[in-house]
């Protein structure tokens, strides 16, 4: 086994993803199989090979850095699950006590 239950729980925390307990064992098994498969790349010696991060950036020009109008506030807030007239409403995340 390459992937353990603890690995999956650690990664799920990083990904901000709660997992249901009943799906966890199966996920561990599936991810272990996939990671086992992708280790196939170890067969190749890539020590002298540069990485590819993008394939066509040289032909993609930058646009001038000019201020443009953005979305009006009420449009930006239109689909928010919870909002105030000024912004998105979220649970408290700073302990003010």
């Amino acid at each position, binding site marked *: 086994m390459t992937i353990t239950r603890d690995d999956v729980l650690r990664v799920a925390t*990083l990904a901000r993803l709660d997992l249901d307990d009943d799906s966890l064992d199966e*996920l561990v098994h599936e991810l272990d*199989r996939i990671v086992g498969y992708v280790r196939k790349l170890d067969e190749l010696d890539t020590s002298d090979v540069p990485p*590819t991060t993008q394939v066509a950036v040289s032909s993609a020009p930058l646009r001038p850095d000019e201020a443009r109008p953005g979305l009006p506030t009420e449009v930006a807030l239109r*689909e928010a699950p919870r909002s105030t007239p000024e912004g998105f409403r979220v649970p408290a995340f700073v302990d003010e006590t």
Partner: protein
Amino acid sequence: MTQSLLSLSVTELAERVRGGAVPAVEIADQSLRAIRERSDLNAFCHVAEESALAAARRLDEQRRGGRPLGKLAGVPIALKDALCTHDQPTSCGSRMLLRSGDDGREHGWRSPYDATVVERLRAEGALLVGKANMDEFAMGSSSETCVYGPTRNPWDPERIPGGSSGGSAVAVAARLTSAALGSDTGGSIRQPAAHCGVVGVKPTYGRVSRYGLVAFASSLDQVGPMARDVRGAARVLEVIAGHDPKDSTSADVPVGDYEAACERGVSGLRFGVPAEYFGDGLDPSIRAAIEGVIAKIEAAGCTVTPVSLPHTDYGVATYYILATAEASSNLARFDGVRFGKRVEAPGADLQAMYGASRNAGFGREVKRRILLGTYVLSAGYYDAYYAKAQRVRTLIRQDFDRVFQDVDVLITPTSPTVAFRIGERLDDPLAMYMADVYTLPASLAGIPGISVPCGLTTVQDGRDSSPELPIGVQLLCPMFEEERLFAAAAGVEELVRAT
């Protein structure tokens, strides 16, 4: 014949509307009726009845007023539900983007803007009749993971249409629309096109703007057309292609005359046949069909040379590291704050709200990929997986660069198998990933590819019926050589139809 107009090609239909022979309203009517009649295929998750009819009425008025009509006047087009539309909901096939409306029913997210490709289609008079089903967040090869349920293949409704742009392919194949847009990250246009017997194009990375395409893997995603013939796909690509300042990866490279290129045919082109695309796992009937196409190309006077792309076998592993890594980052935006699903227990803090919303909103395959992508990017694993895959991606690109010094076009099968049965691979992610083995390398290299129907095969699967299923041949060209790609594809289409 109630569907006679929908059996016309994109170009024929547009020319009739422009010439005044056919009112656009009649086409919109026929398309909307066909979509309703074939709701069993589950190709659409939203039908834009009113706005499509309104657009058609405007076109007809425009024509009566003597004003010129666009290149896609009156052509009904389906949009993959990953493309943002200001007047139609967008769900990307996910529960994450569904919300309960005032009427108590669930609706997709309403984008404040149109994707650039959508704007361009509207400007040329296309009738946007609805949003097509897809695998959730485009993560799949079968269109089964959609929150609206599986899409069915019109050739055999017990089978998948391919994916992730399955609804788009079905809309075109079943003649519900004349064309469709899909998106291709690792084969999501070409593979469903092959399984449904239509033409599907993945343009060069950077050729088409992704502004307004819900992002999956940003170094790979590309929007492209589907149609029933090569020329129709060429016309749609001409409309949607070209630089867009709103997409920083959009290339400032002139758009060619793809429709004119279709006249050239295969004459003078040098074809390469990569040995690695004909190995174990290729269905014998598909091998025979592709070899039949190759024989016709040779008989037409083209040179056909065996070539080698030695790193092909590493494409699937490379892709699933890079695409999932990018997806894990892109999908971080779905956090229950600005749009989409939110689950918030009383007294829950922000982190708990994130975790619960994402657990409730994402389906199983999406969770698998977010976890894998987070894993390969995490401290201690980054070099072994992500950085390694970026280096192997270079080797895969170099394979293509090398063979394109000697040949103009590569010819391969699009998919190793015909459309499989619904449910067959759903519990076996690795088997599902292998469906894209022949389309992934071109995505990693950024080069353009097309799938063209090249025959049918009868499947004996032990049931009463023995359905005939389509086979697709894939053609690949160097970056930004779409004109050559369309010349080759139209030539191959003609050779296939001549027999």
